[in-house]
């Protein structure tokens, strides 16, 4: 018999909490997502290359680069700058914890 807590955990998608205020501006590569923070905006992209699913693990001069097949994305918008990828990076929605100011990213 599953306990209420277990049930809650089972239903709750994995989430990450990031204190965005302490990040500064720039491009931050996490295990499963990428945070892009400018002075006025904050975006979270999936780090999964839309081409064949590789993990994007490098940022070079504002471009997010897939190490497997060489796709490049504009870090600011997630748009494809160079193939083989054809689709932009998936933008992950997030919410802000009013109490702590952290952003909560459900992956």
């Amino acid at each position, binding site marked *: 018999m599953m306990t209420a807590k277990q049930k809650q955990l089972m239903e709750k998608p994995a989430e990450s909490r990031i204190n965005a205020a*302490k990040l500064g501006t720039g491009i931050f590569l996490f295990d499963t997502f990428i945070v892009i923070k400018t002075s006025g905006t904050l975006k979270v992209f999936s780090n999964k290359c839309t081409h*064949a*699913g590789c993990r994007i693990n*490098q940022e*070079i*001069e504002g471009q997010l680069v897939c*190490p*497997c097949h060489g796709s490049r994305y504009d870090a600011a918008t997630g748009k494809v700058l160079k193939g083989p990828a054809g689709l932009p990076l998936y933008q992950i929605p997030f919410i802000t914890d009013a109490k702590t100011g952290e952003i909560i990213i459900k992956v």
Partner: protein
Amino acid sequence: MKIPENIRKVLAFDTYGWVATAAIILCAVSGALLAVPYDVANPYLSVTKLVTANPAASLLRNIHYWSAQLFLILTLIHIFDHLWKGTETNIKSKSVWFRLTLSIGFTLYVMISGFILKADGDSLQAHRILSSLVSSLPWIGAMLQQTFIGAEGNFQILYIQHAATATVILFIIIIEHARSLKVNLRTFLITTAIIIVFSFFFRAPVNGLSDAVMKGPWYFVGLQETLHWITNPLIITLGLIILTGFVYLIPWVKPLYSRLIKSIFVVLIILYALLSISGFFFRGPMWQWQLPWQRDYKMQPMLYPEKIFISSADTTQLAIIQGHAEGCVSCHKGMSGFSDAHKPEYIGCYSCHGGDPLTLDKSKAHRRMFAVPGNLSNAAETCGNAGCHPGIVSRVDKSLMTSLRGIISVDKWVFGETTDLNSKEHVNEIGRSAAGTHLRNLCAGCHLGNEKTKTGPAAWLERGGGCLACHLTYDEKALVSLKQLRNMKKSDNVLPMFHPALNLNVTNDKCKSCHSRSGRISMNYEGWHETELKPENVKGKSNYQVLPDKRVFVKMPEDIHHQKGMLCIDCHGSYELMGDGKHYAHKENAVKIQCSDCHTVKAYSQKLLASTDQETQLISWSRKFKTEGVEVIVTQKDGKPLINTIVEEQGTLLSMIKKSGAGTVIMKPPAKACIEGKAHARLSCEACHTAWAPQCIGCHNSYDTKAKGFDMLKNAGLKGTWVEYSTEGVAELPVLGINATDKSKKNGIVSTFTPGMIMTIEKGSFKKGEKTVFHRLYAPSSAHTTQQKGRSCKSCHNDPLALGYGRGKLVFSKEGKWSFEPAYENNKYDGLPEDAWTGFLKERKDQAATRIGMRPFNLMEQKRILMAGACLTCHKENSLVMKRSLSDFDKTIHERSKHCVMPLF
């Protein structure tokens, strides 16, 4: 033919099929034993521990790997053999052939799942790709993905399927196909012996987690290359399924179609082989093309040497770094001297030095190691590793300190080899033309790509070294360790205990080796001017400094910033020195900071340090700056934060934290004279506050075919060299001129210049038939000799050197006539005095500077300056009338007394 026949008999000890069966049996047995130490929860840790410090298990792993490779190769040959001979028709049952066809897929699945289970960086990416390819299949994709691949980062399903299900299915199919597993004992023993011998010498690959190059297993490199060219991977997945369908059809269709299918397969196999070669040999980091003649071309090893038996290593002391075993740290434990960010407990040794981290054997560990990491030839694999500083390494390659673009383009321009002073050049592309050789002989040693070949602090003339040029710091302990290392014999078993630090302690000396030449800004800044004296001339004299290259410098007024204890990097930040990713033509384009960023009544732009970019944050962390609530200046040009500044009280009270550790310095706003009125509105700060600049009169360049020369790019001596004959440099107030590229003022600003290239080039000495050319080009100068007090009014308005006429007597007569008597004779090529930039009350229409948009004063500007000069012949500089003229010069002239003599032009 008897001997070859004998050899053939020995080699072909059985059929491909039976040797493959022997290999798969060996693979299954070794796999079952390997399953015990393999930890699904920490796969990479368990694999690296096993490879590094468990010789028996490591051998077993090698046997498992090599037997699997042999099985795959022989299976493919076996299939090819049957199809080639047409013996596939021997199988009469469609269901048996169907299962055999499916077994190709199962074989590849078992192989790739094994590749993934080693859990290194390549494996993790392969897991994602496989998952993505399978999931993309319509309708059944999700089910197949969940059944055979599992979630990202979770190897449970893959482990079970690899170890049990797929293997069992494969065996069932083999038994059905071969009707037995009874391999001839001789065949089994020979196959086992071959595999064991191979396993002793060659390791089953396992790589790092974030290596620069990510490649799949050898049999899928062609697929990886194919994927690079195809936007929708579903095409590949469906294509593979369709091809499998065609394999199934071969025995059952008409012979004509059967032959057609086989022909298509032959073409596809050739194509796939070519794609594999392309992927394996010509793809580098980020799957970019890399060609063998590129400086940083690196081919991945085809075989990884193994050393199973290790004599003296203590396997119980194996170091675990960030979730994986690393042999290097196990031997070099206890080493100190590292900066916080580069401590081995965080990054190990392998991240920087390469080599083989998965062994406790010294010689093997040090193979393919970078003794000097950070050279630009290896930076992509060391400092620029995906987990470290890849973005910076890419920027550095485009920076001026790496490319030398400005120097090269100007040199080529004066030699007539380019018509563009901003041409795109890179030091790696310098050829052996007249200009190319000139650069190789005299200039091209100073670039970051110059390879550092020896460990230890760089000697004076050792320039370059990539990242190490600035970031390598040897303290006393590290120097002692280095000495010990150099004196060590091979038999000594003592390890160095102190490592040099890689940090941000970029002292002025790091800049000096290169920047003590040409404009000599490093020396100017500290108040030293180069002379023609010899060391013996100044022995015992206190006012002189002899550099390690024997050049003698005399003391001059130092820059006020140096006087206040500031280092070069207090002003010049990371986006200037390492570049910002853009290609700049010249240094003044790349520099971000301006005097007015700091010396202002109110900061033009400011930002909370905590909200600056990641790189700035890291530097502030490294320099242990307080970040909470601290606001810093943001440069007007390109908006880069000046990390070591502090802005207080609504943008006022600006101060700077000095890198030298000597506290802070208050940055004063400009004096009233600088900002009031419009007479000097076009003046740059440098125009007034530069105390002196090293200047030459001119030089002559010719090629001496017999003299001993040096190729600074090859770092090798050679016969024949360009020789520069020049006059002694003088330290004087700089010449003034117009920099129209500065758009902050209409028609540009008044800036400082020095003779950049007043030179003759005897081109005929290099190539017969060429004519001697003459150039009179001045260059923009930022002398770095700033003084608090500006130069006098007369030093500009009444000085022929400042106006660009050259040295001599500039006289204003009672009749209102300006005249100039030059100190130097007129040059035979252009009729101007040797040291002049422009003629007296003349205007140059030709290219007069080493930059487009920069020029000496035009006639109208000269007249206006001399007009004020005329006033200064009677009125004192600090007189009321001269002060008033600063606010409105035209009004002051209009209201002049009847005694004033206006100049007649």
